[in-house]
């Protein structure tokens, strides 16, 4: 069944009327899953395109789509919402692993691009200035990025007891996978804010 096509179950609709609005409303309350059977993905010039299978000619048209993780902190491969350029949801991919090699890579690339996150392994310096906190850290790749937080307490999100995600003033994200694995000096610096 093509995505967006309303399932014509007259028996079901009969209860609430058969008007177009009712059908659309009922359709809007259903989750649509995107599978290799009803769609395919392609990475073209750094952009992700989706092509619906089945349905009419219009359905075969390739659409520029964006991915949005429904649970970005819990899973980066499962429950991925596929949005059109208007930010309306087309459907949900339950697991990007169900798509074949190339398509999977395209999806992974898109997710990695959107949800790029540095993993902090050491906090070199943390100081307060004009109500902001300036962080100098070392990430897993050995880089030493520097960022600032406007609302320090509000910008540190505790995912689990050990895992933290920090969103800086520019919207960049940094992750501390396990706070207990940080060295004592780093832990002492961040302790005040968590």
């Amino acid at each position, binding site marked *: 069944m093509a995505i967006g096509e309303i399932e014509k179950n007259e028996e079901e609709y009969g209860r609430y009327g058969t008007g177009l609005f009712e059908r659309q409303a009922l359709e*809007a309350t259903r989750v649509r899953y995107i599978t290799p059977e009803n769609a395919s993905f392609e990475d073209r010039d750094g952009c992700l395109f989706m092509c619906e299978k089945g349905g009419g000619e219009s359905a075969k048209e390739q659409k520029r789509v964006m991915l949005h993780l429904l649970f970005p902190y819990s899973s980066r491969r499962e*429950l991925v919402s596929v949005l059109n350029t208007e930010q309306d949801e087309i459907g949900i991919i339950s697991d990007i692993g169900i798509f074949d090699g190339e398509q999977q890579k395209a999806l992974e690339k898109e997710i990695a691009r959107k949800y790029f996150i540095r993993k902090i392994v050491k906090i070199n310096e943390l100081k307060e200035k004009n109500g902001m906190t300036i962080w100098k850290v070392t990430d897993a790749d050995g880089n030493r990025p520097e960022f600032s937080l406007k609302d320090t307490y509000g910008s540190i999100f505790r995912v689990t007891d050990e895992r933290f995600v920090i969103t800086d003033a520019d919207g960049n994200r940094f992750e501390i996978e396990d706070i207990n694995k940080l060295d004592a000096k780093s832990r002492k610096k961040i302790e005040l804010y968590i």
Partner: protein
Amino acid sequence: MGGQTRQSGISGRVKPNKKNPDAEHALKVEERKRRLEDALPELSGVSFDACELFDLDRDNRACDGILALAGGRVISDAVFADGTSVREVFYVEDVAVVVMRRDFGVFAGEIVLKDGRTAVLCHTTPECSLRVIPVLKMLENVVNGTGDALPFGAAGGTAPGGQNFRPRKIAENAGKTGEIKPGDAPGKSVAGGENENGKKNRKKEEQAGAAPQPQGDGPRICPKCGRPIRPGASSCSRCFDKKKVFKKLIELAEPHKTAIFFVVFFQFVLMGISMLTPVINRHLVDDYVKNDASAGLIAADPVKVLIPFLALILGMLACRIANWGIGFVRGYISMKVGIGTIVDIRRKLFAKVQSLSVSKIEKRTTGEIMVTISSDAGHIQGFVNNWLPNFFQQIIMLLVISIIMVCYDWRLLVIFALPLPVTAAAIVAFHKRTRTLMGRQREASSETTAALHDILSGIRVVKAYGTEERENKRYKKAAGRERDISVETEILLAKLSPFIRFGLTVGNYFLLYYTGKMILNGTLTVGQCTMFAAYVGMIYEPLGWLANFPSQMLRVLTSANRIFDLLDEQAESKSENGTVRRIEGNIKFENVSFGYESTKTVLKNINLEIKPGEMIGLVGRSGVGKSTFINLVMRLYDCDSGKILVDGEDIRNYDTECLRSQLGAVLQETVLSSASLFDNIAYSKPGATVAEVIECSKAAGVHDFAVKLPDGYNTKIGEKGYTLSGGERQRVAIARAILRDPRILILDEATSSLDTEMEKQIQDAIAELVRDRTTIAIAHRLSTLRNAAKIIVLDGGRIVEAGSHNELMARKGLYYELVLAQRGGAAPETAKQLLENG
């Protein structure tokens, strides 16, 4: 007296005696007593244990009343101006509890009988109440077994007919005076009005050792001191049973007894060390400082003298080190026990609050519960942490030092202790005042916390109405009161403390004089004098501690009383085996009446049956009892009379957990916790899968805004998180209800915060949701009820109309008026149009 003319009718016939009102009153009582004896021949010859006049009947009509305790009976006799009278006689042994309360100045004395019935003994004006309270207190003492028993069957007290004559109630001129029938008794659960379940519950409470709770919801008066009893408290904060509370407190410390034992043990070791130090000092002074012989010995054989000297010095050092080391270990264990206790108490209190019914929680303010969980629990920590171990230490220390002093010279102790009785008497004299002030201080502190909580929880309203200044004043007033009482307490303590300190230490001067004299006489060495001085210095610690003990203990016991009041509350019924019975969804109201207050009935005699899978709509003006109706279905409250049957079984017989696990509700106000969006939706079904949550979210329209949030379902909402709009919150509530998959669904203005477009979309989700479930929906927007099989119209707490939309419109009754009002007065064209337009 017997020669005086007997008078009858309303009082006022006794010659006024303005100079001695008490004598005048006594005459009136005697007169009234004689009339009562005339009316009840079985009382002739029976001595009256107590009797007093009252001036109002249960309907607050003026009367000439007498309340008497005589011959094992309690008699209430009221004579009215028209000559009619109402008299009630009860056997004291039948009385379960005596209730005293005030309602807008009118004092009421009531009794609850052992069979569950209640009766009003008297009503009085405030002036008159002061005289009646002692009689009721006496009755209560007898009932509670804390006073002398009334002479049952004393001299002629046996009723005529012996055992066959046991008048539960005698009403003279019943026909014309309006006899007080059992069903007329006041309070919610009047005799005849109380259902079997209520009686069962009361019996259970009695078996559990709890005093039967008085009926009604007016303020209660402490029978001992006449002060009002705090709502939710089982007894007066001043007159509670301190021994009982102390026993419970000790039970509370029971799990930590091993640790407490070690703390006490280390205390003793520390005490031993500290008592050893003066002995070493004595040897140092006597053998090395003041001893002329030692100087010669040092010159002759310095090693022989220095080695013991160094041993003493090392001994002192060892004492210091041991003191520090053991003190640290003791402090560590003590702190661990204290923190463990406070966490235990707080956990228990929180669990108890969770398990209580809404009506029981509502008896206390939120601030009060918070103070109990935070401050009161903190006082208990102090008790377990410090007071309990110190108690043993201080007592033993006092005894040991006293014994040491007696062993050396008993006169030393006598001289030292000479002024102590005077000091103790002063402490006792001031104790009453400090106790009252500390009680007031605690109450003021609770009020300040409660005020703060009220203001903060309603901060949006405060901001919206710009009443910050008013709230500032309110808080300032509450805090100011606390400050004033604290200052008063501190001033009193500051006045008292120097006196006590002087009283405790004045013996020291006598002792110095005496020991000085002994040194001069050569009967005491300087070292011994130093040692005694050290011991005397040490004895002040337990004495000072004991001087503070009553007030500090009272503080702890008062806090403990509040904690136990909460912990001893009866939780909602739970199934013993934990099985969950599936509910089909048939709900039947049989003559159900309910009111949040006994005097204001919200729902009156409701009879209604909702079949399984049926959807009914509740319609009516604001305040007619729609939300109360669903509160009863959710069993947040129990009905006062009649019963609610779920699948033919009384709702009160259901395990509340079982019942509520099959209930789903979308209420007017959606409460979200400070957690992720996913957690907030999954709240209704712990363990729900991600797919389930997403499907329900999609159906309820949550998914649409969830995909626009950067963190999706991981987005933290609530305090310090993403703030949802009213419509979004309502969608979350609907998603929760869908996820719960309940057998009985309650929709209380479920879509009131949604815009028309979203509502139409959600309506389909709701239509799907209500299918095959018993649904009770409340809506002012009538379009929400388009799928309702039956619409029930409530007015004045009663069902005034019931039927389908078309039937109700055709009837042109209240529903028709409501529909017209919603359409702005325009007459509806068709029923369908009405529904669509809402």
